[in-house]
């Protein structure tokens, strides 16, 4: 049986009626068995919908996806094994790196406020910023690093040598962390902690380079 309230039951269930409408409908429900039954059925539909299981496709789509995005066969398929298995030395090393990075970042932040607004003279033997070619295989990362290093090199004359030394020191720390993570991942590619650690260090390097390039006023 359908009445004027039947079409409002979904809105009632979803909490979308005004307070007066809700009061009126609840009074109606108290006296209308048909609407109470319909409301319960609609509620069960919603419950069923939220409990539906996701099903994978009948056939694996990955080979087609991999082909379309241009992945080579060697980049395909390693079994997905998510597990946390890292050693105490790895954790200790990570702690040291994080501590050093925090100190370096704090120093940079403090230092940032003292950067002169006008270009300053740079010693002829100013430190050379690190090479971007240390991570073959991560083409986009390499390209971004190279781009930022070029931008930084162009504006390096605006930084004093002490600032450049700090930037270099922090980049070396990050580079060591990246190399360590890459080395560990070579032995345990599916280790989610190591993947996370590597990605964080790569991001950290990009962020440091961006900050340095901004300091140097070399980027648009």
């Amino acid at each position: 049986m359908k009445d004027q309230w039947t079409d409002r039951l979904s809105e009632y269930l979803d909490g979308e009626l005004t307070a007066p409408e809700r009061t009126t409908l609840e009074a109606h429900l108290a006296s209308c068995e048909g609407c109470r039954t319909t409301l319960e059925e609609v509620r069960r539909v919603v419950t069923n919908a939220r409990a539906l299981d996701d099903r994978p496709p009948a056939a694996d789509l990955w080979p087609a996806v991999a082909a379309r995005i241009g992945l080579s066969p060697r980049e395909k398929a390693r079994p997905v094994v998510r597990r946390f298995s890292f050693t105490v030395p790895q954790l200790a090393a990570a702690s040291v790196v994080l501590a050093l990075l925090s100190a370096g970042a704090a120093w940079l932040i403090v230092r940032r406020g003292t950067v002169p607004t006008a270009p300053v003279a740079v010693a002829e033997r100013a430190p050379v910023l690190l090479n971007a070619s240390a991570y073959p295989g991560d083409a986009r990362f390499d390209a971004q690093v190279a781009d930022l290093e070029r931008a930084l090199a162009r504006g390096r004359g605006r930084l004093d040598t002490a600032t450049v030394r700090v930037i270099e020191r922090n980049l070396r720390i990050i580079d060591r962390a990246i190399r360590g993570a890459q080395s560990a991942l070579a032995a345990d590619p599916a280790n989610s902690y190591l993947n996370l650690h590597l990605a964080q260090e790569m991001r950290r390097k990009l962020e440091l380079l961006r900050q340095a390039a901004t300091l140097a006023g070399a980027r648009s």
Partner: protein
Amino acid sequence: MELTTPGVATLRRDPDQRALRDAETADAALAASGDGRAFERLYRTHVARVHSLVRRMVGPDHADDIAQDVFVRAWNKLATFRGDAAFGTWLHRLAVNVILARRTTLGTERGRYDDSADVLDDVAGRPAAPELSMDFEEAIGRLPDGARQVFVLHDIEGYRHDEIADMLGIVTGTSKSQLHHARMALRRHLDR
């Protein structure tokens, strides 16, 4: 289209979701730098959800093709994923956008939003006996396009009516109306 976080979709989380999210954010960063293995891990984790969303939205015939499109699009847009939301949330919204973009070529665009209850009658016929009751998923698949898409987006995926209206190019009232029609039709296919 602005990325938002669907309600129910956000609630459907595992207890160790934070660890999973961190690992996926890491994989997304690796994939963005060209790591195919990291992207395959993301694919394996999310393919069932993406494929199910596509299948429910457009039906089984084109589900494989469109699910592939979703992952190809995701690969090409990985640089725009910044980790502000979970990777699954980002991928899910991207999938919805891919699906909706394909509606035009599949003939399920806005013009087919019939707001009448009559169009649901063929779905709504109550089975004579419980054993004849069709599978709930199959019943969803037999809903008219508009009602089905609104139902999937709202009741399964957790989007709000204003988000759905924006995505589908309809008014909020139509979204609410379609949802109610879909629920009324589907209640006849509940297990008894």
